[in-house]
């Protein structure tokens, strides 16, 4: 019985604090993305000549995001029936946008006009034993050009 209460408390903490943090994070992301303004990001550019460029530099942005208790539990249930796991979609979106933003902010601080050849990578950290934490690292990197 106590085990169940403990579990319910954890679930409630995960749900309330997790979703509040997520909403805050999304608002923060939106605000920072708007603040970036005119920086041009492109995925092509590895082979394109850049005759007008005076300097280039590699920029990396990375973040480790983790799932909360509630998300992990819901995802566990959803895995039984398969299909879309929305709780993890938002988690990945947060990670990706955050990593991209950090790269863009670093490039902007250096004075970049655009960032070319952007690559985004995701690596799982938690290990997959079902017990450990669900955490993944997202890194975004590209060449800033001014």
């Amino acid at each position, binding site marked *: 019985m106590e085990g169940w209460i403990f579990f319910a408390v954890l679930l409630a903490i995960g749900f309330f604090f997790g979703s509040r943090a997520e909403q805050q994070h999304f608002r923060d992301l939106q605000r920072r993305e708007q603040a970036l303004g005119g920086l041009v990001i492109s995925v092509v550019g590895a082979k394109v000549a850049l005759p007008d*460029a005076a300097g280039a*530099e590699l920029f990396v942005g990375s973040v*480790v995001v983790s*799932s909360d208790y509630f998300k992990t539990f819901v995802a566990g249930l959803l895995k039984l029936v398969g299909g879309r796991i929305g709780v993890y979609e938002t988690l990945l979106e947060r990670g990706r946008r955050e990593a991209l933003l950090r790269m863009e902010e670093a490039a902007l601080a250096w004075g970049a006009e655009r960032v070319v050849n952007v690559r985004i990578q995701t690596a799982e950290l938690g*290990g997959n034993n079902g017990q450990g934490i*669900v955490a993944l690292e997202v890194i975004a990197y590209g060449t800033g050009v001014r």
Partner: protein
Amino acid sequence: MTVRSRSSASNIILTNIETIPGSTITQHLGLVQGSSVRAKHLGRDIAAGLKNLVGGELKGYTELLQEARQEATDRMVQEAQRKGANAIVNVRFATSSLTQGAAELFVYGTAVRVG
């Protein structure tokens, strides 16, 4: 917040495109690489375990991986300097988790001389 791509001890230019804008490549010096294997330590692990309850960014791990990536990059830059390069083009990053709790950060690129 981000990994500093330029090592403090050197002025090697890194890009992940095939050229260095504003200068021409005069000589290719081959592949250079650097790697670093890191494990998280207990203090960070406990903090991350607690943070995992509410989710969000695990700052301890973000920093840990950034340090590791910086170290891998520094090693790559050192190798390039030994070869006499002054720039590295086409830099790529790779991460692989070895076991639960340890990850390898790997960086590689082509060392070149630019004029």
